């Protein structure tokens, strides 16, 4: 019995643990991954460039930390201020805008706060706060979370002062959507995560379309001067592909339920 276990374990250890192809690591945000776009792009990247891109799906905060520590070769995030601070500290070589999508406010189909009548996002945020309808916040220091906080402060509100109706769950987009669905609450989500979300039960988009809600994704290679093991050449190869026409077509044509999610806006 013990001997059999040993043989199995040894066999398991001898089997290749890592792929042998050219492999690089990129930290991406949960919202990007949940959109399903990565499942389309990764095989194409592999086919066109031979690159095996391993995705670490984390919040923007951790993505930046992974880049600082040199644990990934590049990051793809959407939180401009944090990205610029990252570049200023010398952790990344440069910032390349790739595409954008947009955020939406999701809530119970009955629309208890009357968001349908909101003029703009500031108005919508104010309406939710004054009606004190249940609201789920990511609360995980991610790009989406930071965006949500900026929307509150744009309406001269401070999330720190909110009462019991405001629930910071400290979780990824999908888990937060699950929570909102469970409690019949409101939540700010990126459109992609929402469309791909399987458990919509009783929720609907209540507010969308304000340009403030646009969400720019940028690609940043980690600085090889800080970490000499970083595969900067592979990161640049990936960047070349991400701004190529092939990527443009794939990104712009990516649809869920007939809806376009991302708009390619990289400049050559």
């Amino acid at each position, binding site marked *: *019995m*013990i001997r059999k*276990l*040993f043989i*199995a*374990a*040894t066999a*398991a*250890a001898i*089997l290749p*643990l*890592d*792929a042998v192809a050219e492999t690089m*690591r990129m930290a991406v945000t*949960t919202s990007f991954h*949940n959109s399903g776009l990565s499942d389309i792009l990764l095989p194409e990247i592999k086919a066109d460039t031979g690159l095996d891109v*391993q*995705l*670490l*799906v*984390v919040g923007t905060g951790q993505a930046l930390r992974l880049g*600082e*520590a*040199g*644990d990934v070769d590049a990051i793809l995030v959407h939180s401009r201020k944090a990205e610029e601070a990252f570049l200023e500290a010398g952790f990344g070589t440069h910032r390349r805008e790739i595409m954008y999508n947009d955020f939406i406010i999701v809530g119970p189909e009955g629309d208890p706060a009357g968001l349908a009548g909101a003029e703009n996002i500031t108005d919508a945020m104010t309406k939710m706060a004054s009606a004190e309808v249940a609201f789920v916040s990511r609360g995980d220091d991610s790009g989406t979370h930071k965006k949500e906080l900026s929307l509150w402060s744009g309406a001269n509100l401070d999330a720190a002062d909110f009462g019991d109706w405001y629930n910071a769950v400290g*979780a*990824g*987009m*999908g*888990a937060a*959507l*699950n929570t909102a*669905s469970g409690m019949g609450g409101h939540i700010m989500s990126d459109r992609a995560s929402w469309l*791909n*979300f*399987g*458990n*919509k*039960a009783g929720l609907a988009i209540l507010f969308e379309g304000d340009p403030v809600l646009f969400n720019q994704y940028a690609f940043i290679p980690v600085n090889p001067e800080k*970490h000499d*093991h970083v595969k900067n050449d592979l990161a640049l190869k990936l960047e070349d592909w991400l701004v190529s026409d092939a990527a443009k077509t794939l990104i712009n044509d990516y649809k869920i339920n007939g809806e376009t999610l991302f708009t390619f806006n990289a400049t050559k």
Partner: protein
Amino acid sequence: MYDIWDGIKSALYLLVTLDRDLIEITLRSLQVTLMAVAIGSAIGLPLGAWLAIRRFRYRRVAIAVLNAFMGLPPVVVGLIVYLLLSRSGPFGVFGLLFTPTAMIIAQVIIITPLIASIAHQAIRELWAEYHDLLISLNTSKGQRIRTLIWDGRRPLITASLAGFGRGIGEVGAIMIVGGNIDHATRVLTTAIALETGKGDFALALGLGFVLIFLSLFVNFATHALGRTERGRFW
């Protein structure tokens, strides 16, 4: 409310059709945890036996430390291994973070104290039982240890199985050190967490069934070992 039956049906479909992702993830889980159990047993079983037989000054302290390590929160183990293996950490040069090796290291740290503790208890009991006989028969130290390990093989295998049970169902530590990378470090538990996060319960449930099956297997095996211990013939 999400229809659980739909989830179960599609989960069973994935199982019956031997879905490729499901198989791959299951095999990787087994690969990581079996390796961790092998290493953990190679360290934990002799350590437990040694603590049971040898008298030395700090034995009680050593046992107390061992039992304390058994209660280590896996997620904290994960965090510490992460910091150690990170490129900016002391072992960063090996580039092990986000590899199955890192997951094995974390699991070894989590399950070795458990295996050692159970082994210690089992061998201590057996040693108390055999003490007079083995002394009377004038056995050498080596003969004693070999006899105790052989005659204690059932509880020792139970110890390894307990380690396997703890390792295979663990999510906190391997999520942190493995990074849950598709086709590289995604295992049963982290995949379930991810798929649940996506609200896609079919694959999550399918993987959950595999996990439950593995847990049941461990329990049945433990139970069967206990039965043979009490049986008339060995």
